[in-house]
């Protein structure tokens, strides 16, 4: 298992190859990408920044917890930081497991924990030229209204 924060483009196929093994019946690959609209605003790109040393530590903790909880060591997570354009991958999560149910659960667990506690931030850049730090807690609060 492995977790990394990188500045270069992610390679989902390499992650899929890395987690493969004849003991596994199911491989699950999650790829998060920069999309063109968020909260109704036209997005042109995203700048990701991180507290790198802590982010790697937290990611490694999440991967280890997923491995132990769901019973597989074939887990790889890579998050990219820096300037990303539309359609580019910001995160790749690969999980392989003998059984599919655990593969789905582990993959979902990792992305939810990543979003909850890994110190990574994003500044969205909009087509109108403005840019803004994204605050998911504000978005959730607004959505709950």
């Amino acid at each position, binding site marked *: 298992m492995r977790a990394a924060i990188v500045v270069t483009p992610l390679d989902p196929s390499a992650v899929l190859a890395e987690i493969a093994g004849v003991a596994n019946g199911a491989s699950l690959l999650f790829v998060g990408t920069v999309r063109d609209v968020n909260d109704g605003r036209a997005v042109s790109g995203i700048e990701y*920044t991180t*507290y790198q*040393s802590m*982010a790697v530590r937290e990611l490694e903790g999440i991967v280890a917890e997923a491995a132990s909880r769901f019973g597989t060591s074939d887990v790889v997570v890579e*998050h990219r930081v820096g300037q990303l354009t539309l359609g580019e991958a910001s995160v790749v999560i690969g999980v392989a497991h003998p059984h599919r149910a655990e593969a789905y659960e582990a993959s979902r667990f990792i992305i939810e924990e990543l979003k909850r506690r*890994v110190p990574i*931030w*994003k500044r969205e850049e909009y087509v109108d030229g403005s840019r803004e*730090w994204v605050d998911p807690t504000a978005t959730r609060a607004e959505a709950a209204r």
Partner: protein
Amino acid sequence: MTITALFFASYADVFGRSQLEMEVPTGSTVADLLRQLHALDPERRLPPAPLVAVNERYARHDQVLRPGDEVAVIPPVAGG
């Protein structure tokens, strides 16, 4: 004693920098450090009780600081 405060993303914008060496009395807690930081933020752009990590681990505000601690003030995370 000297503490290193780290600011990221929108909080780096608040303080106009990403790092600040701060002098605090021995025995100070995270909350004490935050009080000093709030004093540097008259526009109150830093929330009253932000997330904090001490030496790369999330910490409670009553944690007692030690010389050389690295205290990161963490805006709402938005990875993924």
